[in-house]
């Protein structure tokens, strides 16, 4: 009796230690709630502290209100610069489900790279650069009170005679700037700024993407709402050279999403499935040569819109994760054929070996 109690206690202690070592499940961070900027910043530090071998943070710019724009760099450290995947969330302040997704994504990959051979391979061959909240000023402002919840733009003051605040960051990039889907009225929600890259947040992303141009294989920018996967370009008369492939990859991602909870995501260029626009970060990424550039518009389709209930955070993040991974795995396998084959061979060998050994028992 005492022996079995002891062994149970030992097992429990080992399990507890294992969970603490993993760090993530045991902590009380609730991924099914929306978090303030302070909470997200603290969480980022925690991710860095608990995963020192694979996670580090980088400050790559400042917001108008002088906050440090920070990303998490995740992956195994390598000698030479690795190929990379970029993800940003929260370009638009009111789209709270987007930063929630970035946090979920980080949690998932950090929690599975040691046990999932596919994710392990991604960590080996790729670096992930993930910005949980890009428009920090706007996000913080949207938390201020009930009247500010639906803020979208940056918080830079208007220039000249303008008495309104903010520029639409996703119209401010140097990509067909000012051509379509914008307003020159500075009070408009789609005001594209006095000049391209007038906003320090857009400048920060531009600088980073430019500096890492040769490494970046994939640019993902997360928004809501609409349940869409958008491919470049936002201008109706311009096609990306790899449009067909982008559509194929996007449609595969939409299928992966649907398989999770049955939600339909439509795939296409913005002028086809949403509206024409210019100056978007997705277009800029594609223009400077990042081959796979997508915008995700997460749940829902207009019932709750920006005010997506917290009980939908988990299912939304689960399906979007499968969609993002579908794209990332495609890109990885295309660029690292040998590695993909090795993983597959390893899996098959393991399966066959376990089958043989179990067959031998009988």
């Amino acid at each position, binding site marked *: 009796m005492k022996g079995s109690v002891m062994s149970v206690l030992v097992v429990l202690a080992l399990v507890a230690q294992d969970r603490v070592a993993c760090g993530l499940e045991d902590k009380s961070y609730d991924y099914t*709630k*929306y978090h303030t900027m302070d909470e997200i910043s603290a969480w980022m530090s925690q991710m860095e502290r608990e995963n020192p071998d694979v996670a580090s943070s980088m400050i790559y710019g400042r917001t108008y209100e002088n906050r440090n724009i920070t990303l998490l760099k995740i992956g195994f450290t390598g000698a030479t610069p690795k190929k990379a995947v970029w993800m940003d969330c929260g370009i638009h302040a009111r789209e709270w489900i987007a930063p929630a997704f970035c946090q979920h994504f980080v949690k998932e990959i950090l929690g599975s790279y040691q046990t999932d051979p596919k994710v392990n391979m991604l960590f080996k061959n790729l670096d992930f650069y993930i910005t949980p909240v890009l428009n920090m000023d706007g996000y913080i402002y949207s*938390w201020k009170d*009930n009247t500010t*919840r*639906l803020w979208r733009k940056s918080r830079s003051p*208007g*220039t*000249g*005679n*303008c*008495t*309104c605040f903010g520029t*639409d960051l996703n119209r401010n990039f*140097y990509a*067909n*700037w*000012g*051509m*379509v*889907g*914008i*307003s*020159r*009225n*500075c*009070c*408009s*929600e*789609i005001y594209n700024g*006095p000049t*391209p*890259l007038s906003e320090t947040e857009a400048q920060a992303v531009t600088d980073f993407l430019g500096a890492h141009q040769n490494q970046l294989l994939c640019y993902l920018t997360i928004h809501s709402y*609409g349940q869409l996967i958008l491919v470049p370009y936002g*201008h*109706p*008369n*311009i096609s990306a050279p790899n449009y067909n492939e982008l559509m194929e990859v996007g449609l595969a991602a939409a299928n992966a999403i649907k398989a999770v909870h049955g939600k*339909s995501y*439509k795939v*296409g260029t913005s*002028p*086809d*499935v*949403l*509206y*024409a626009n210019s100056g978007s970060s997705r277009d800029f990424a594609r*223009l*400077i040569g990042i081959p796979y550039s997508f915008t995700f518009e997460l749940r829902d*389709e*207009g*019932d*709750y*819109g*920006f*005010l*997506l*209930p*917290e009980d*939908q955070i988990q299912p939304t993040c689960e399906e979007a994760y499968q969609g993002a991974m579908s794209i990332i795995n495609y890109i990885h396998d295309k660029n690292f054929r040998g590695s993909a084959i090795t993983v597959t061979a390893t899996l098959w060998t393991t399966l066959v070996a376990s089958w043989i050994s179990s067959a031998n028992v009988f």
Partner: protein
Amino acid sequence: MQSVIRTHLESVSSHSCYATELSFINSSTRRRSPPEWIMKTFCSVWLLLSLVELRPALPVSQETPLACRGPADPALQQPETPEEMDTTGDLEPTHYPARRAATVALHYLNTRHGSPYRVFGLQQVHKASAEDVAAGGRKYSLDFSVTTSPSGSAGPALRCSAEVLFPRTERHTPPDVQLNCEALQQLNSTAEDEAFYQKYITPDSAVSAQYLPDSYGNMSEDMQPFWRLARVAASFIMLRESSENTEFNMAQVASITQQESSEKQLMLDYVVLLHDLPSQEIIQWKLLASWSPDSGVRVLQMEWQPRCPHATKPPN
């Protein structure tokens, strides 16, 4: 030609691209070092793309702030609207022209058959086509399915067909909708509608609330039928304000105040926030709605409310 390019470059390009292109134009025989070559390629691509629509950089405007302007204001609609292609003949069901027309049909359906326990939502557009009509305007023919809240996708889907006519007039005219859904006539007032009515028609009932749902998307179960009623009432406004260049959803109920019941109708004062997708604007409307299971929803008063610190005169 060179001066045109120069002017265009000045207005559209950054200084670095401008300088690179100028040097390219001026001295095409000079050997270029690799970084400059990359810059030149990038800038050439940039120039090429920007030349697709030669448009001078537009000045920043600040007249009446946009949120203070009236509804159906041209500026509210998507500016710089490019020439709409493929919007006559057969339409791609997943593309926005079909979806916007279907959304208008949904607004209409909700005004006629919506209730606290029945709000219709678009499930899918199956087929769509559009044609220009002689009187001026564009008529969309739609085949689509709808779901009803609260059951949503768990409940049955209704198959509908509709014709949505967007007139082309100088001042905005609401679209005209002809609609047919299967089994619509069999849709009776639900038991939940009846119970809701009985509960709140009592003389001392004075429900009031603010911000439904709250910032976290949460709402008590008690308030959900009031929120759905707001969606139905807002459909009257969204229907009236719709055009081919808008796509409205109700973003939030800012406030609800129950008024004294009148002639056996629940009377509700609402302030609703509407979201238009193409312009991304949030537009605030105050409205007085009545409802009973027999009469359905009616909007008795509606008033657009400017959302700006320095409110200007509302439009007529």
